[in-house]
Every structure is written in C-alpha cells, then in structure tokens.
C-alpha cells in the first residue's frame, strides 16, 4: 500500500473499499479516505492493513444484522467502533474470531481476511484462528482458577508444559497488562479474589499470553469504575505498540482518548469511518454528528 505524502502534514492514505452508505455507481470501486496521523506520529510508517472486511452481510436466522459492511483495520493501531446498541458493532467484532459460530442460525456472507488469509475458509482451523485473535469481553471473565493458571491456560492449550517457560510467560503477560506489581505475590490465589479492574487486566494478560496479532475488545470498561477504566485505557495505548486492537465502546470519550481510527455504525450499516480526530471534530455524515453530539443514541 503506497502512501505518498500529499499535503503539508504527513498523510497516509487508507484504502477503504466501498463504504456501505456512500456506494458509488460502480458499487465496489475503492474509495480513498485521507487519514491524518496525529501530530506526534509525524514520522510514523505508512499504515499496513491487518483485518480486511469486504461486503460482509450477517444474518441471525432471517434477521440481517450487518449490511454490506466493508472496512480495513490497520496494523498496530487502535480502531474504535461506536454506535447505539444493536447497531452491529459487537456482532462485527465477533466475526473476527468467529465467536458468532456459537450462535445458532448465524450466517456470514462476504469476505473477512486477517493477514491476507480468509478466516471463513472451511479449511481453516478455528482454534488456530482464535489463538491468533485474542478477545477481551465486556465483563471480566476470569476462570475459577488461580491467577497463574488463568494466564497459563492459553499456553498450556498449545502444549507448553515446562514450568520455567510458563513462569516466564505469566510474568511477561502480567507485566504487559500492568498487573505484575499487584499480582506477583498472589499468583496462586484465586483470580476471582481480584477487583473488577484487576480482573479485566488479568483477562487482557490472559489474551496476550498466547501472543495474538489482533486483540478484540468488546466494551472492556463498561463494568469498571473510572479509575480502573483509566488504567485499562492506558494499557490499550501501550498495547498498540505490539498488537492490532479493535475496540467496541459506548463511551465516545473513550473512543477519542484511545483510538486512532473510529468507525460509526448504525442499524447494521457502517456510516462513517475515518481517523478519530476528524470523525469527532468534523464528521461528514449528519447521523454521525447527531450521534456524537448526543442528539440520539
């Protein structure tokens, strides 16, 4: 993906094929939106696509939950998805690690590629995909095991039995999730004894322990108090050094604080997708503007 700097500030062009709401006559002609990097990232490398969604329709039985959605998530960036409840943002998120497979009567059409690989390819091993695409859920969901065992769960599934190796992974993951200092003396205590915020960071640590490329976060702070939320948000910003993060949130301040790009969805349609600063300061769609200014939602 080439991206010549074309204006006074450093600009990167992100290719977004066929935005659903503004279909051109040709339908699939790729549309370019100019993405302006934040000032401090002036020397950043050009964006590399990580997750590519193309013309995805999703049905729950007869009900269509996603309508011809197409967008590209860049590598090692935080992309936020906002929109009112039921707009399909969580549904879309759950397509990326195929958690929707668990829902009876759920059908996906179109193509979703991660790292160039079609994840709905019948030959693909779903467990392999899920190892590569970690997920953090709305409510902290640690297993009823010790802190250590929670982190070691994923590596153990991959067949790592060596205690020293597991120790190392647990320490690295907990440090990565900024939980090491609080948890290092109580690794063998139940994870359920941690506070809500600590539990959520534990879940993040658990997800990064298997070293995924993509980290999906489904409203990770909705069950947390403001202080815990702050810690998790700081963590997200740190984590984007190494992971591609896609976060669903109801909290628009949060989206503007942590994300590089933001997608606004409404009733299964992708309405607008651009860099966060622009989306929040100069939304191009009336509905986006109404939503972010609180006129509905």
């Amino acid at each position, binding site marked *: 993906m080439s991206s010549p700097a074309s204006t006074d500030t450093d600009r990167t062009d992100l290719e977004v094929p066929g935005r659903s709401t503004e279909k051109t006559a040709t339908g699939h002609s790729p549309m370019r939106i100019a993405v302006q990097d934040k000032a401090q990232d002036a020397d950043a490398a050009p964006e590399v696509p990580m997750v590519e969604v193309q013309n995805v329709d999703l049905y729950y039985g007869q009900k269509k939950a996603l309508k011809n959605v197409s967008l590209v998530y860049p590598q090692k960036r935080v992309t936020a998805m906002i929109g009112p409840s039921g707009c399909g943002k969580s549904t879309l998120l759950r397509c990326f690690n195929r958690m929707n497979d668990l829902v009876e009567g759920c059908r996906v059409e179109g193509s979703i590629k991660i790292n160039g690989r079609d994840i709905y390819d019948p030959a693909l091993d779903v467990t392999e995909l899920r*190892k590569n695409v970690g997920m953090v859920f*709305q409510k902290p969901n*640690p*297993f009823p095991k010790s802190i250590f065992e929670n982190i070691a*769960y994923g590596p153990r599934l991959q067949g790592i039995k060596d205690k020293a190796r597991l120790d190392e992974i647990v320490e690295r993951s907990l440090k990565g999730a900024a939980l090491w200092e609080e948890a290092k003396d109580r690794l063998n205590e*139940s994870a*359920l*004894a941690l506070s809500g915020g600590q539990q959520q960071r534990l*879940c993040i640590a658990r997800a990064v322990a298997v070293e995924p490329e993509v980290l999906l976060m489904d409203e990770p702070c909705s069950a947390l108090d403001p202080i815990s939320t702050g810690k998790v948000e700081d963590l997200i910003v740190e984590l984007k050094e190494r992971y591609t993060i896609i976060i669903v949130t109801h909290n628009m301040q949060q989206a503007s604080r942590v994300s590089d790009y933001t997608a606004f969805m409404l009733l299964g349609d992708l309405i607008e997708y651009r860099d966060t600063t622009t989306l929040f300061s100069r939304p191009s769609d009336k509905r986006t503007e109404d939503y972010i200014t609180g006129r509905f939602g």
Partner: protein
Amino acid sequence: MKRHWKHILLRSGDPFIWLTGGALAASLLLVIGMIALIFVSGLGFFWPHALTKFDLGDGKQVLGALMEREEVPNPDNPEHAVRHRIKVKQGNRDLYGMDFLWIDEDQIKSRELPGDAVQVERMEWGHFYGYVKEVKDGDKPVATGAEAFAKVQALLPEAERIREEIRSLERDSVGEINYYQNQVRLKLKKLHMDGVDTGPEVDALTKEMDSWQQKYIDLTKRIAELKAKQTYSVSFTAPAGALASGEREKTMALAEILRVDKPNHMSFVEKCSYYLAKVWEFVAADPRESNTEGGVFPAIFGTVMMVMIMSVLVTPLGVLAAFYLREYAKQGTMVSIVRIAVNNLAGVPSIVFGVFGVGFFIYFMGAGTDKALFPEMLPTPTFGTGGILWASLTLSLLTVPVVIVATEEGLAAIPPSMREGSLALGATKFETTVRVVLPAVMPSILTGLILAMARAAGEVAPLMITGVVKLAPSLPLDGYFPYVHLERKFMHLGFHIYDVGFQSPNVDAARPMVFTTTLLLLGIIVLLNIGAIFIRNRLRKKFSAATAAI
C-alpha cells in the same frame, strides 16, 4: 374504625410475616421433636437401670428394672380414682417365659433396691436378674455368697479370652480352610467340566484338598482342647416371679456369661464407664440373639460401603448425562421431555426401582455373569442373587436424577462468558468443558452427591429385595482375594431397624434398640454429609467468590 385498624394491619404485611414464620416454626418443631425423641430414647438405652425388688405379698417377689408407668384405663367407671400400673423388665426369659411384666401399683406391698442384686449379660436368653450364689469349678465349689461376685469378676477376663479364641478359630480359621477347600473343589469341578478327571493336575489338587482336611482336623482338636478348659459354672438365685412364691435357682457356664454388674452399687463413674463400654460394643461388635443384643457393626459397615459404591457409580453417570443435556444436546422439545422425565424419575416409588433391580440386574445381568464367568459354581448363584453390587446399582438408578438435576443447575449457573473466554483462547469445546466448566461445576456436583447419599443411606425398600439380609455371615470386604466381594449379601442399618423393631421375637426388649439404631443411622448420614460438605467448601474456597462472580 375497626375496619381501619384491619386495613392498616393488612397493608403493613405483618400477618404474612407471621404466617410464613409460623410455618417455619411448625416444621422446625416437628423435626426437632422427632430428633429429640430419637435422642432421648436412643441414648438412654445403655444407661444401667437400677434393679428394684417389688414385694407383691404372699412371698411373691419380682426383681427387675422399672421401665414405664401409666394410668390404668377404666372406661366403665370414670369417677373411679386414678390407678397406675408399671412395666417392669424382669428378664430371666428362660425362667419366666417373658421379659416384661405389667404390675398394678395396688398390688405392690413394698419396694427396695437390694444392693447385691446383679444384672447378668449372657450369650442367650437376654438379661438375667438375680443374686450370685456360688461359683463352681467342675463340681467343686470355689466361692459362695459375697465372695462369689468378686470371683466371677476375676474369672471373666480369662473366660472371655478363651471364648474369643474359640470364636476366632471357628469363624476365621475354619472359614479360611472352607474357603480354600472350596476353591480347590471348584478347580476340580472346572477340570471335570473340561473333561479332565485324572492326571497330574487332578492329583495335585486332591493332595492339596487332603492337606486342608488335615488342617481342619488339627483345628477341631485345638477347639476341643480350649472347650475343655471352660470348666467354671456360676449359680444364681432369683425370685420365683409374680405367680409363685419362693426362689428359683439357675446355673450357667461361665463361658456363657459376658458380664455381671451390680447396678444398684455402681457409682456415677462406674455407670459412665458401663455406658461407654456398651456404646462401644454397639458400634463395634457383631449382633447376638437375632439382632436384639450386641452390636451393629456389620450393618454400619454394609451401609457405608453400599453408599460409597453407589456414589462411585452414580456420580459419573449423572454428571455425564447432565453434561450432555446441558452442553451438547440441541435444546428443544426432546431435551425438555427428557428433563421432565428425569425429574419424574425421582418421584417413582423406591420399591419399583427394587423390582427393576431384581428383574434386570439380578435375574438378567447376574445370571448372565454367572453363566459366563462362574459356570463351575452353578447351580449355586454367584452374581445371580442379591448382593451389594446390585443393591448399589439399584440405588444409583434411584438417585441419578438428583445428581443430574443438581449438575444441570450448576452448569446453567456458569456464565456463558466463562466458556467464551476459554473458546476465545483457542480451546476446543472439549477442552473448555474439561478444564473450565468441570472445575467450576464441581461444587454443584458435590451438592447433588450429598443429596443422593442422604437419600440412598435412608432407603430400605429396594434393598430388601436386592441384597440386604437380616444377618450376613461375612462382610463384603475381607482378607481373601479379591478382597472386595461385590456379590455378597450385606446388612444395612435401615433394614436392621425394620428387622429389630418388627420382625424380632422379643419386640419389647428390642424397642430401645430401634431408636439407638435410628440415631446411629442419622449420625452416619450426618457424617457422610459433613464429609462431602467439607470437600465442597474446600473446592468453593479454591474458586472463591465463584458465586459472587456469577
């Protein structure tokens, strides 16, 4: 005005609180009343009773323990002054023909507590109440009168040692020889069935048989020697009873006597030690006199072992069924029907399960096993008759709904997010089930098991036809290969209660035993439950706040 007051009362909701509280109090009272009755009647059984001598005039005397006092009903003349009668345990069934006697209080001239009255526990005929007269060694008098009692006490330990030795030889050593002889006989029969009637194998076995026979002869000699040592005898006197005047004499072999006490002379400490000795005998000894005396150890053992086997069988069955229903089966009409059926199964009368156990397990599976594995034993059935395995299997069927329901409820309470968390890390459904769901549902499984055990330990009807007997010759666990004998019949506390209380030749004497056995059964169930609750709480602690997170 009044209406207003009622209105306020109704609005306040207080009457409803009283109603619910009252219902709870009533249930608690009933339960506490029952437990108190069992405790009082059961625990008092072993306390030594004072022996009272009742003088009925005309030289007629009764010696015995006062058991009860009640009003004499007199429907014809309600104006009549209230009269009472007492129930006395006079013992000496061999002399009087019955243990218990009702005496009208009008008839009693005087009462006293004779200090030298003794209570004799013996192998047969129940208690003897009387006075020690004389101790003899063969025909030679050794001690009389006051010395006699001390002499008996001094001789009793040795007598008990010899009695125990004879018993152990007769039961264990002869039993062992019988067992091995039988093994040899079966091997011979098997060879015969295979068409081998001569040859080195048969010779070796015949020789082995002879050596066992020789051992048996040696053993009978040894027993005869020991029996020859039992030369002492003790004479007692006792009042002739309510119908005749004068005294009667009774001589019994010292070997027949278990213990002799002077209950009227006992200090409080002696009474306590008597009490503890009797309690210990009750839980640790074998029953005597068609279960009305002695202990209930084989019944305790049988009950506990049966519950254990049942738990081992029912837990995997119930848990696996619940996992399929909740985790794998497509939720729909069919699963709902199955679920309702499982719940209804818990309401089927237990005797129906017993009949099924007889028909399917014993007559079908048991007989089949015998034909396939023990043809040399036929026509004597091995598994083709009631036994602890079949009884346990029948009870597992009876209790499997409890485990299924409890496990299913536990599974339903595990938040889906926990399963998703595991799947999202790349676990397969099976890995998720085993590594995350199973540990989380463990407390619920144990809850189900606790309920199942409580139900199984108290069940009698299905056991009566699938393997419980009044008196089992041997425990289902012993020192002979294969050590655990699942085909054996066994004793059970619940059946023991029924047997002692309603099938015993001497119901009056056995009645306190019913309460004591009930108390013991309750105690065992409580112990088993506490054990399971302890394990469950440890598990819960391990996954602490598991419920809080849900």
